[in-house]
């Protein structure tokens, strides 16, 4: 989650859902929290009962809107204008909480004189390289200092090594704490958002000024020493070609209002599954190792190169070598030492983009032989189902592990030409195995096996462990150097009985131990870079402190205070609220009695939570000019993972599409960009493939309506856990779309009847719900209709239906390669579709110009993925 990672230092929700009860205003945007996180939503209801104002900004009136004090209908894909408008309101009405903003953010930092804003370059920042289709970030930097690594260390694009830890001189960067310097971040923000006025919000988002200003007033009235507000978002924000910048916009608002690290404040990133947070902490991502340690890049030839690039000059990423070496000791044990670079050359190297969409498009070109699908149903749940099926059909082998015979395991039945050999392994459910979930609170909670899995069902742990054992056996006698890592891998977990690994043994490895004493570690500060400690995930160190399974703690909240630190365990160091040093003023005193949380008692930081700070560093501490590493964190630097200890209103590095969020229309929209001549995010990733045709950027007469996709309470994502259960299936038994009365009248749709929804990728049929919860908006003087599409259905299971995701194109945000499924275009007509499957595109249609050259300037995309031409 670089939106939060770049802004504050860690890619995770900054608070915990229980804390929402202390909010004085909650803005839910990009999330349908009541429907998709009903259990967490109880804390919003609690806040409401205590008098908080609840705002829901969403294209649809949902079950969340029904509980809100104000529902703001918005055009899907226009949120940066709405949020930018709030930033504009705060800055122009002088509503920022400056006592907080000046010491705790980079508002006062002065930016390089070469920097040019999108206001000056009509939608581009300085440094655009049209030949490469990417930015050179050099002019975005702080004035007079070398490059400052983002989130302490993170590089979205791995760089070549050399030069030692970066960002050592960041404390020497000039600051103007009067915020008057024309190139200080505060003034640059004012300039950047000068045109994000209530009138523009109305013109682009379709939100009347009165409604918009109501939201601004509630937010600013609930800011300052006595009051706080929170933002909640989910994939309604992330799944856009500018998704990361949506989250950055909210981060800027929360910094300006002084809401970070304080009770009732923060940004709640709502994760969609039981352990999605866990799946990035101990990642299933191609470019990360556990604990957000970057994967080695092919350009980083030696361990020294790798460590130099990733070690920060200041903040806690300065201890990067200790985190990395401990990880390698956990992976390889005695097989690694300083002499063989701790096994660094054995790690696979990243050579480019290997994200999901790129992998699947490679698959369609026959470049990938085998594929493991575990706990996922890409044929239904991922973008462009047709491409997904094409890809699977070109494999040699496919392994699917799931609870039921999901579409990904059954796709070949509809494809007589498919030669892929499909292996299906039945999986054990969470009640049938031990393990942990890491939820949206960064909270690890242990679950115990309640019943034995039926038949041949096995847990992922047992499956992967057995697979590893067989691989080790297969390569045991190899002399090929490439097989060395498999031979050297430490792979000896305790087994409860043959074939069943003790999950607690894995937690032990993750927590790590002191290899000299053999004792479990209790916090990440104990990690060493000399090979005397091992830890499978440095941010999880302490989850098994004292040899006790901390995530298994279940002391009820009523037996402790509201923070409930003895329920489960959260990373890092059981801190429930991140950056909580900021809950005290620069002198270390609570901002107010009402918002007391963590404070300095004269000797140490104390309060309701574990302080997210150096426990005994006084507020008065200031580093010397040449201090680096943890020593460089000043007593007023609450953001200890950042190299400069500050929250970043402006990101001088780390984001590929700009230092400040800027409005771009979605890849496929209905109106031209009313802010800049550049229509879409110039840095977005396109995939030019036969199966992945794009509509015109706007005004495409074939596809006049905005489509947006979502989930329902009654189903689980791609349906693998709900469409086989009668009790859930009967509640939402058929695929449907939601349309307004006005659109129904315009097109001739009848409530309960059939409709066919079409894009260039596919056509699907569904039932129609005509509802007042969908309303047309007035955008740039015209009526814009939006169509809502839940995406749970597929071709197998108890209830079946067409898959919405078949409609969506591969096009991605550059920072995280996430698809744009929350705003795209399509058409709708009454009746059922005529073809059983996807429509085959006419070749003539392929030549359709995408961005209408000549009409508008358009940043070309030479980096775009086009394997058909390769």
């Amino acid at each position, binding site marked *: 989650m670089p939106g939060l990672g770049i802004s504050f230092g860690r890619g995770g929700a900054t608070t915990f859902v229980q804390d929402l009860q202390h909010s004085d205003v909650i803005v839910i945007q990009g999330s349908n929290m009541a429907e998709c996180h009903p259990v967490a939503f109880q804390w919003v209801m609690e806040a409401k009962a205590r008098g908080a104002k609840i705002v829901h900004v969403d294209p649809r009136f949902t079950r969340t*809107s029904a509980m809100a004090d104000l529902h703001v209908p918005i055009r899907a894909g226009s949120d940066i204008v709405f949020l930018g408008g709030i930033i504009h309101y705060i800055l122009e009405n002088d509503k920022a909480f400056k006592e907080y903003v000046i010491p705790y953010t980079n508002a006062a930092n002065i930016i390089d004189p070469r920097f040019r804003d999108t206001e000056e370059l009509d939608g581009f920042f300085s440094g655009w390289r049209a030949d490469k289709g990417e930015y050179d970030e050099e002019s975005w930097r702080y004035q007079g200092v070398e490059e400052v690594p983002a989130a302490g260390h993170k590089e979205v694009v791995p760089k070549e090594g050399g030069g030692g830890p970066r960002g050592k001189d960041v404390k020497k960067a000039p600051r103007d704490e009067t915020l008057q310097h024309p190139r200080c971040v505060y003034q640059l923000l004012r300039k950047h958002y000068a045109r994000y006025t209530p009138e523009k919000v109305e013109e682009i988002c379709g939100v009347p000024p009165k409604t918009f200003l109501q939201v601004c007033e509630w937010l600013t009235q609930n800011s300052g020493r006595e009051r706080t507000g929170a933002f909640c978002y989910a994939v309604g924000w992330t799944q856009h070609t500018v998704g990361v910048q949506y989250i950055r916009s909210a981060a800027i608002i929360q910094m300006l209002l002084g809401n970070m690290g304080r009770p009732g404040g923060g940004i709640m990133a709502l994760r969609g599954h039981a352990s999605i947070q866990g799946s990035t902490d101990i990642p299933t991502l191609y470019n990360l190792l556990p604990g957000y340690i970057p994967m080695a890049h092919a350009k980083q030839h030696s361990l020294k190169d790798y460590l130099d690039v990733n070690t920060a000059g200041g903040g806690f990423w300065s201890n990067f070598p200790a985190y990395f070496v401990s990880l390698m000791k956990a992976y390889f044990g005695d097989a690694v030492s300083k002499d063989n670079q701790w096994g660094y050359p054995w790690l696979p190297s990243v050579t480019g983009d290997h994200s999901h969409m790129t992998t699947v498009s490679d698959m369609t070109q026959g470049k990938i032989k085998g594929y493991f699908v575990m706990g996922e149903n890409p044929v239904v749940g991922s973008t462009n189902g047709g491409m997904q099926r094409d890809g699977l059909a070109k494999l040699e082998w496919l392994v699917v592990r799931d609870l039921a015979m999901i579409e990904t395991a059954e796709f070949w039945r509809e494809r007589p030409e498919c030669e892929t050999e499909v292996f299906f392994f039945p999986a054990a459910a969470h009640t049938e195995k031990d393990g942990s979930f890491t939820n949206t609170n960064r909270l690890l909670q242990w679950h115990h096996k309640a019943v034995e899995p039926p038949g041949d069902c096995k847990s992922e742990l047992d499956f992967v462990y057995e697979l590893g054992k067989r691989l080790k056996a297969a390569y045991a006698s190899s002399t090929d150097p490439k097989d060395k890592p498999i031979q050297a891998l430490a792979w000896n977990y305790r087994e409860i009985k043959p074939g069943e690994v003790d999950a607690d043994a894995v937690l032990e490895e993750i927590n790590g131990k002191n290899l000299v004493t053999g004792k479990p570690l209790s916090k990440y500060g104990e990690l060493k870079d000399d090979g005397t400690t091992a830890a499978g995930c440095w941010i999880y160190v302490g989850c098994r402190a004292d040899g006790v399974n901390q995530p298994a703690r279940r002391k009820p909240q009523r037996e402790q205070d509201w923070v409930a630190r003895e329920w489960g365990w959260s990373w890092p160091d059981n801190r429930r609220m991140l950056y909580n040093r900021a809950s005290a003023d620069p002198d270390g005193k609570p901002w107010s009695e009402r918002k007391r949380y963590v404070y300095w008692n004269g000797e140490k930081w104390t309060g309701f939570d574990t302080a997210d700070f150096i426990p005994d560093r006084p507020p008065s501490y200031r580093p010397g000019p040449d201090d680096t590493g943890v020593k460089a964190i000043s007593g007023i630097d609450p953001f200890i993972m950042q190299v400069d200890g500050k929250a970043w209103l402006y990101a001088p590095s780390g984001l590929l599409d700009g230092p400040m969020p800027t409005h771009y229309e979605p890849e496929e929209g209905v109106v031209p960009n009313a802010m800049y001549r550049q229509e879409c995010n110039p840095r977005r990733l396109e995939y030019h493939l036969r199966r992945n045709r794009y509509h015109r950027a706007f005004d495409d007469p074939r596809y006049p309506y905005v489509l947006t996709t979502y989930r329902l309470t009654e189903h689980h994502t791609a349906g693998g856990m709900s469409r086989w259960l009668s009790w859930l299936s009967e509640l939402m038994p058929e695929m449907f779309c939601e349309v307004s009365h006005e659109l129904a009248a315009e097109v001739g749709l009848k409530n*309960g009847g059939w409709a066919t929804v079409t894009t260039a990728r596919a056509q699907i049929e569904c039932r129609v719900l005509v509802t007042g919860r969908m309303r047309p908006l007035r955008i740039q003087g015209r009526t814009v209709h939006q169509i809502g599409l839940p995406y749970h259905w597929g071709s197998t299971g108890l209830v079946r239906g067409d898959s919405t995701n078949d409609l969506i194109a591969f096009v991605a945000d550059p920072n995280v390669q996430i698809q744009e499924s929350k705003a795209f275009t399509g058409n709708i007509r009454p009746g059922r579709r005529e073809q059983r499957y996807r429509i085959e595109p006419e070749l003539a249609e392929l030549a359709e110009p995408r961005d209408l050259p000549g009409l508008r300037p358009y940043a070309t995309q030479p980096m775009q993925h086009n394997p058909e031409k390769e």
Partner: protein
Amino acid sequence: MKGFFTDTTLCIGCKACEVACKQWNQLPEDGLHLTGMSYDNTGHLGSSTWRHVSFVERPVPLGGTLSNFSWLMMSDVCKHCARAGCLEACPTGAIVRTEFGSVYIQPEICNGCGYCVSACPFGVVDRREDDGRAWKCTLCYDRLKADMKPACAKSCPTESIQFGDLVQLKVKARQRVEELHARGMTEAYLYGEEQEGTGGLNAFFLLADKPEKYNLPPKPEVPTKRAPKSWLSMGAAIAGLAALMLTAAVTP
């Protein structure tokens, strides 16, 4: 006396109550068809649906909010009437009042006559197609015996469904209405907390619109409520007829 207070202004329509009820009581599904009635695909309470969430879409705001639309949700259930029509109509004694004050159908005694079905003023009791017997919410009698909350109340994430001692629930409910009025939701009121026609409901509701909007009868009445009056009028009729006959007899 135990019962439910269902505060519909807290209901987020998640239907966890429906699912928890079906799972605990092992009830079969009843049809996989989209109704087209907002997000309600269950339709109504029945022999295999003992909790049902209804959805009411209204193009008018809810008091105290600034949105120009509202969506009311309400989890309906057997009311366990203080004076229960089903119980009074049951000829076999299968329907009893339990020690918790709830109305319980003993399936091993029920003979499927169906009198209770027409005697329920709310249309809650229903016979199953396969075995012919009458079924409805048991207030999780088995769970109560084990000192556990009913499954629906246990699963409700927002405490829209509150289970407990009726006297206390009624105090809480009245406070909640006052609170909502103070916030501008002046339309909030209690349904069934006191009710002449049923003697009051052991499962009562806080509503924000007319009962009919939620598919509830505005003035429910158990059939036997009118029995004394009808006996009386029948008596009067007989007396009248007798008088008439007498008059006829004595008239020459």
